[in-house]
């Protein structure tokens, strides 16, 4: 299976994870599934990128984690967006919008 997450722009995965957690705390597999579903299968995130990203975001203070029971009554580690993470997400979203708009303008001008 091709790893499409490696096609992600560096740092984008972090933003996607933060965005996914904006509504509610989720566990690792849930986050991966959510990204896949919403992107309609364009992004498939593999654990080899996902878990290092969790560790990184936790260290940065944007995520917190806690152990909870899942819907299937199993124990899983849930990730929660912190206040700092919310601020970070806002900033990154704004920046992203600016950049994509700029790139779009350039591409249109060329064609």
């Amino acid at each position, binding site marked *: *299976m091709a790893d499409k997450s490696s096609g992600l722009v560096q740092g984008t995965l972090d933003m996607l994870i933060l965005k996914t957690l904006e509504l509610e705390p989720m*566990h*690792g*597999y*849930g986050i*991966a*599934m959510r990204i896949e579903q919403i992107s309609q299968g364009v992004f498939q995130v*593999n*654990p*080899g*990128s996902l*878990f*290092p990203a*969790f*560790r*990184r975001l*936790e*260290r*940065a*203070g944007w995520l917190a984690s806690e152990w909870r029971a*899942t819907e*299937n009554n*199993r*124990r*899983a*580690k849930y990730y929660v967006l912190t206040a700092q993470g919310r601020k970070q997400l806002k900033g990154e979203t704004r920046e992203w919008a600016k950049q994509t708009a700029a790139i779009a303008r350039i591409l249109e001008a060329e064609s």
Partner: protein
Amino acid sequence: MSLLRNLASGLRGLFRKEQVEREMDEELRGYLDAAVIEKMRQGMTREEALRAAHIEMGGAESVKEQVRAVSWESVVETLWQDLKFGLRLLRFNPMFAAAAILSLALGIGANTAIFQLLDAVRLRTLPVRNPEQIAKITIDHRGGASGSFSSRYPDLTYGQWEQIRAQQQGFSSVFAWGPTLFNISPGGEVHNVQGMWVSGEFFQTLGVEPALGRLLTPQDDHANCNSTGAVISSSFWKHQYAGENSVIGRTLSINRHAFEIIGVTPPNFYGVEVGRYFDVAVPLCAEPIINGEDSHLGRPEGWWLSAMGRLKPGWTLDHAATQLRAISPGIFEATLPPNFNPEQAKHYLGYKLGAFPGDSGSSELRSNFENPLWFLLALAGLVLLIASANLANLMLARASAREREMGMRMAVGASRGRLIRQLLAESVLIAGIGAGLGVLLARNLSQILIASLSTQNDPLFVDLGTDWRVLGFTAGLAGLTCILFGLAPALRATSVAPGVVLKESGRGTTKGRSRFGLRRILVVSQIALSLVLLVGALLFARSLNNIATVDAGFRQDGILVTDIDFTSLNLSNERRPAFSAELLSRVRAIPGVDSAATAAIVPLSGNGANHDVLMGTSDAPKDDAQTAAFNRVSPGFFKTLQTPLLVGRDFDERDVKGSPHVAIVNEEFARKFANGKNPVGMTFRIRSLRTISAPHEIVGLVKNAKYADLREDAQPIVYTSPAQYDHPDTDAQILIRSTAPLATLISEVKSSANQAHSDLDITFFPFQKMVQDGLLQDRLMAALSGFFGALAVVLAAIGLYGVISYMVERRRAEIGIRMALGAGQQAIVRLVLRETGVLLLIGLTAGVVLALASARTATSMLFGLKPNDVLTYAMAVAVLSTIAALASFVPARRASRLDPMAALRNE
């Protein structure tokens, strides 16, 4: 905030590693479970779902590794693992580890010890308040000066000091001081301790606070003080008075005068002279009391003081020096000794005072030993370099043995950096342990060095603290050696292309060439460096041999020098010669004494007196008057020293006061003043300062003898008889030639002297020991450079042996073929030795060039040979070649005894 969290989380990862790992396992298992359930919901069977989920996930271990790599603590952890691995490797090869660590410990220890000494005598500042404000005040470029000198630093006279104190402006306060010896024994055998004359401002200017009692102040140091206090050092207090507080107020006898002890200095204060210490300090005004007739204080031509001062805030050294220059003419005008002749006066009035940095005090030790110490540091550095090269060689050998392992690991994905880190960890361990042991070793080595430089009359004290400079130096050395011997092999080992290494079967045939090159370069540089060290060692050894066997003009052994001081008897001038003669005849009567004589100046003691000699009887002083060295000796002096009398006679009972003045001269005198003719019968006059003596008739000619120093060229010497002069001494310095054991002789001399009078001060020292103490520097250089040279040669031999053995091992197949084709054993030995010959030739050539370039710096330390002495170089080359041949002969013979069949089958 985020940094703090990162740190906390990292530490949790380090110390609660198991829990963190367990959580990670659980999380990954949960992920897998969730994936399986999801896939089964989509319609897969359980087996299919499990398989798909596992494939999706990849290896759980690799995921975990990636997660770990995110955090900093993993770096710490791999470092720790590398060190543990390195330690295991070292434990695996205890011989290698021991050899490596020991050679590094020796190298680093020797370097650290010498650096520690340099640091103490050269780099450290005085143990006083704000030492950077202290400056030394002295005459700039004084050159030759006339007068009488005493103390190690005869910079100024008392008159000059008084003027400086009154007129200087750049210093908030100034002080004068001078080192001396004090006899603290109230009578009998002399007990000398290190004394110091200090002006009243001494302790206040330096900012030294008393540890007990009070220190001397300007009120203690006033003209004609007749009772004064003495300050003692902390170490003297502990040794002599067991550190009791009741010491204050007790009486100390100094040259038979009672002084009250008023205070003790703090433990870290040793005075202002680096390399020495003081026991007792008394004010300058006490000098006439202690020295009596010999006092310098009132003499305008008595040089015995050294001055220092603390700069006023806002004044620079240059500024203060300018002011001192400006007041110089007035000061020297006011203090001109009245008995100077016009030449001397002109010279004297031209003096200019100057100010110099004084933050590290004065030090004779520094000026005598700074160059030798830097030189020794360079030698020790070379040894360390050779030891590092050896280690690098060993590491390279091990690296090539592990080439396949490295290639394999790189092939399965280990990064080069990671491998280098791991290889370096071992080097870091060796260097670290070596440096640790080296520091321990250095403490003892430097103490031994100091002890070997100290003599009974000249005790040294160096405050050998291990400060940041020493530690930094050692750490730097360890790091440097680590890079030298660890980095190159590590880079080498990991620079392989994995494919190439794995393809190669067993040992290589041609590819070894380039990898082998580095090891050859190492051995060549080892040979070159050890040749430099060997040349140095031989130069110093031959120099010492030259100076120890130089013809001094007398026999040094079997002579005891005793000084019997009868100042305390207060004899009148008229009675002194008779008492002195009585002492001499009593000594001569001791059984076992072959001969004895008095001498005003003991040869090679460093003391001396020079006067102008005017040949003929003419009164008119010639402009080109030349000087000769003078000594006053009793009859029997030449017999005692066994200096041959060539022509004429010795002094005898005819030569007394009132009879015509007579003199005995040496060959050099005859050459210089009598055009090489027999001088017996000629007359001359002696000019000292303004006075010109009555004519002296030369009655004898003796062989040249050394006067002040074994290194000096022959100089003209005039011997006169003390019986013919006024102002006789208040002591008798007697040279005794005897075959009796020293201890018996000493007690016999003591009891005979006691029969003459029971209240005398007596000092003893064996003549030969004094002469040998004068050669300390030569012996030190010869011993240490010899030690370093031997070490270097051994290390180079080991290096060469290693490389040749390795070469033989690599060329087994070739040698086997040669033998199979009929090459004899001798041919094989020649083949291997030729290899050595090439390396040796290159190494020796480079070494000779290096040695020639560097030996010049040792010129001033050598006696009787030049630094480019051909014989020395030839000897060094011969020694090194022989040892190199031996070192490579062993592997060569092993090669020649190869079983060709076995060698070829192995291929």
